[in-house]
C-alpha cells in the first residue's frame, strides 16, 4: 500500500492540475484569457479541491432489495446446492453424512458469526488491526437498524444488518466446502470442533485481512484531510490522516484485488482440504474398491444450484445494484460456461467420453476462478479465464492428483484451491483496462469520486501473487496445525468397521434412502 499510496498522492496532484485545465481552455477560447486570470483560476480550483470532504449517508432501497436476494442465493449454494453436489459424489452409505456435515456446519457457523465472527472479521482490531478485528461488535454490540456500512460508491451506504447477513453466508459456506476433501471417513464430532476452530482462527482473520477497509467516504475524508494538512505544513495531522488511510487489512493494503473471495473462500478452503486429506489419510479400499459416485443426478442438481446461487455470491459482492453488478452477473455466466465446455472437451479428447461429471466439475472450477475477477475482468477476459481454469483443473484432478497419491475425495484442492489460485492471479491481469477490465478502483486521487487507477502490470501481479502465497501458507499451515490439534485430542477418523459400514448408520443412525 505504501507504493499505492505514493502513486495515489502523485495522481492527486496531477488531478488537481488537470482539473484546472478545462477552465483555462474555456477562457482561452473566449479570447479573454490573461496570464493573471489564469493563475487565479487555477489557484481557486486547487483551493476548492482542498475543502474538507463532507458527505451524507444514503441508503438505496434497490441496493437493500438486491442484497437481500443475494444473501439468500448464497445460502442456496450451501444448502441444498453444495450438500447435494457432494452427496451425489459419495457412495450410498455415506450420502446422509455429507448432507448432515454441510447442513450442520452452516448452522453452527451462522451462530458463531453473530456471536463473535462478524466482530473478528469486520471491526477495528486495535494493535492487531492489520490481521484480525476485535471483539467490539461481539454479540452484535452497537449494531441496530440505523447503523450502516460503506459500499463501493461515495455517499451510498447499506444497512449493517444486510451486510452482516450477506457476509455470514460466506462464512457458512467456506468451512462446508472443506468437507469434500475427507469425505466418507471423518468423525462428525471432530469435524464440528475443527470447523469452529477453523472459522475462528483462519477464516475470520483472512476475511479481515482481505476485506477490511474504511470505505469510499472515509478514504475521501482522510485523503482530503491529509492534503489540507500537507498544504498547511501540519505534518502531525498529515501523518494521522495517512495512518487512517492505511488502517485496512494486511492484504487489502498490499493492493491485492479479490472481488468475491478467491483467496478468502476458495484458496482458503482448498488449502484446508489439502491439509485435511493428508492428515486423515486415504479411505479404506482407496484405489481398490469401486468408489463411484452414487448419484450423478444429485450432483448435477447440486452443481446447478451452486451456479444459480453463485450470482448472489459474485454479483452480491458488489454490495450495490449497479453496472458492476451487471458485469459480475455476466462474467459469472461466461467464465462458468467456458470452464464447463473446456473440461468437457479436454476429457472427451483425452479420456474418450464427454462426461456429465466433467461438465459439472468444470462449471464449478469456472465459478471458483471467476470469483475474485467477477467485478474486475471483462466478459471476454472471463471467457479466457474460464477456458484456462477448466483445462488446468481437469489436468490436476485427472492426472496430477493420482500421481501424488492424494485421496482428496471430492477434489476440494483440485477445484477450489487450484481454481482459486488461477482466478486470483488472473484477476491482476484481467483488471487491466487495456484488456477491457474495469481497472483498479481509486478513491483518493479525486476524493469523493471513484477513478480508474493507473494500471501497473508488475505491481498488480506481484500484489496478487503475494496474496496467493500468503493465503496458501496461512491457510495450509494453520489448517494443518488445527487438524493436528483435533487429531491428538479427540481423533479425526471413524473406526475402520464404521467406515466400511458407512457413516450414515454408524454416525447418524439413519440411512439416506429406505427402499
Amino acid at each position: 500500500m505504501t507504493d499505492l499510496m505514493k502513486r495515489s498522492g502523485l495522481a492527486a496532484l496531477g488531478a488537481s492540475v488537470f482539473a484546472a485545465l478545462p477552465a483555462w481552455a474555456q477562457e482561452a477560447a473566449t479570447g479573454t484569457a490573461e496570464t493573471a486570470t489564469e493563475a487565479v483560476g487555477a489557484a481557486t480550483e486547487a483551493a476548492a479541491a482542498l475543502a474538507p470532504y463532507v458527505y451524507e449517508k444514503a441508503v438505496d432501497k434497490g441496493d437493500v432489495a438486491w442484497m437481500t436476494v443475494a444473501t439468500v442465493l448464497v445460502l442456496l449454494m450451501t444448502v441444498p446446492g453444495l450438500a447435494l453436489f457432494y452427496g451425489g459424489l459419495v457412495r450410498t452409505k455415506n450420502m446422509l453424512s455429507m448432507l448432515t456435515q454441510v447442513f450442520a456446519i452452516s448452522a453452527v457457523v451462522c451462530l458463531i458469526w453473530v456471536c463473535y465472527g462478524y466482530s473478528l472479521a469486520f471491526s477495528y482490531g486495535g494493535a492487531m488491526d492489520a490481521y484480525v478485528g476485535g471483539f467490539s461488535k461481539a454479540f452484535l454490540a452497537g449494531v441496530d437498524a440505523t447503523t450502516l456500512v460503506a459500499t463501493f460508491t461515495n455517499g451510498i451506504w447499506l444497512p449493517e444488518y444486510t451486510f452482516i447477513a450477506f457476509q455470514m453466508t460466506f462464512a457458512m459456506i467456506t468451512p462446508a466446502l472443506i468437507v469434500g476433501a475427507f469425505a466418507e471417513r471423518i468423525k462428525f464430532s471432530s469435524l464440528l470442533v475443527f470447523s469452529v476452530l477453523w472459522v475462528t482462527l483462519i477464516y475470520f482473520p483472512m476475511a479481515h485481512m482481505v476485506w477490511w477497509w474504511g470505505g469510499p467516504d472515509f478514504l475521501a475524508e482522510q485523503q482530503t484531510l491529509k492534503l489540507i494538512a500537507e498544504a498547511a505544513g501540519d505534518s502531525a495531522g498529515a501523518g494521522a490522516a495517512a495512518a487512517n488511510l492505511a488502517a485496512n487489512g494486511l492484504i487489502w493494503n498490499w493492493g491485492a484485488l479479490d472481488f468475491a473471495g478467491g483467496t478468502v473462500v476458495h484458496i482458503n478452503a482448498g488449502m484446508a482440504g489439502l491439509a485435511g486429506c493428508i492428515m486423515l489419510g486415504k479411505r479404506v479400499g482407496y484405489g481398490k474398491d469401486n468408489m463411484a459416485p452414487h448419484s450423478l443426478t444429485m450432483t448435477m442438481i447440486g452443481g446447478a444450484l451452486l451456479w444459480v446461487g453463485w450470482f448472489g455470491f459474485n454479483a452480491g459482492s458488489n454490495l450495490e445494484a449497479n453496472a458492476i453488478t451487471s458485469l459480475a452477473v455476466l462474467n459469472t455466466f461466461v467464465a462458468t460456461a467456458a470452464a464447463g465446455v473446456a473440461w468437457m472437451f479436454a476429457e472427451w479428447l483425452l479420456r474418450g467420453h464427454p462426461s456429465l461429471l466433467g461438465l459439472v466439475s468444470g462449471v464449478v472450477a469456472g465459478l471458483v476462478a471467476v470469483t475474485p475477477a467477477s467485478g474486475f475482468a471483462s466478459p471476454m477476459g472471463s471467457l479466457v479465464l474460464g477456458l484456462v481454469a477448466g483445462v488446468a483443473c481437469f489436468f490436476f484432478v485427472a492426472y496430477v492428483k493420482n500421481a501424488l497419491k492424494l485421496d482428496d475425495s471430492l477434489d476440494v484442492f483440485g477445484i477450489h484451491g487450484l481454481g482459486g489460485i488461477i482466478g486470483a492471479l488472473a484477476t491482476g491481469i484481467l483488471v487491466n483496462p487495456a484488456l477491457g477490465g474495469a481497472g483498479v478502483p481509486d478513491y483518493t486521487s479525486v476524493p469523493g469520486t471513484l477513478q480508474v487507477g493507473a494500471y501497473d502490470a508488475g505491481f498488480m501481479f506481484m500484489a496478487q501473487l503475494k496474496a496467493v502465497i500468503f493465503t496458501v501458507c496461512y491457510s495450509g499451515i494453520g489448517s494443518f496445525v488445527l487438524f493436528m490439534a483435533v487429531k491428538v485430542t479427540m481423533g479425526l477418523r471413524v473406526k475402520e468397521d464404521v467406515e466400511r459400514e458407512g457413516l450414515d448408520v454408524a454416525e447418524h443412525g439413519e440411512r439416506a434412502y429406505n427402499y
Partner: protein
Amino acid sequence: MRGGSPRKGFCHGWKGTGVKLIIAAIKPFKLEEVREALTAIGVRGMMVTEIKGFGSQSGHTEIYRGAEYAVNFVPKVKLEIVVPDGLADQVVETIAKTAKTDKIGDGKVFVLDVEQAVRVRTGETDDNAL
C-alpha cells in the same frame, strides 16, 4: 418354504414331483419379450430378480474425474419359472429363442428338478400348485 405335507426326500427313493425349475439369466431389455412369449405358451407365473454377474461377457471401465473403476459385473435379469415336466422343454426353447441377440452376454438357462411345490392359499401340491 416347505408345506405341511411330509417331505418326499432322496433317502426314501426319488419319485419326482413332475415339476421343473427353470432358471434363466437374460439381458434386461429382453424381459418383456420373454414374458410375452412364455405367457403365450401357457406359463402362468414367474419370479424376476435384477442381478449382476459375469460370464463370458467382460465388464467395462467407468471414469469419474481421475478415478477409473473396472466394472466386472454386468446387470442381468434372472427368471425363475416353475412348470410341469411336460412344458419344461418348450419353456427352455422359447427363452433361448426370444432372448437371443447373437451377441455375447445373451445369458444362460438351467433346468432343475423340484422336490416339492405347494400353493400357500389352498395347500395344493406339485402340479396342482402351479
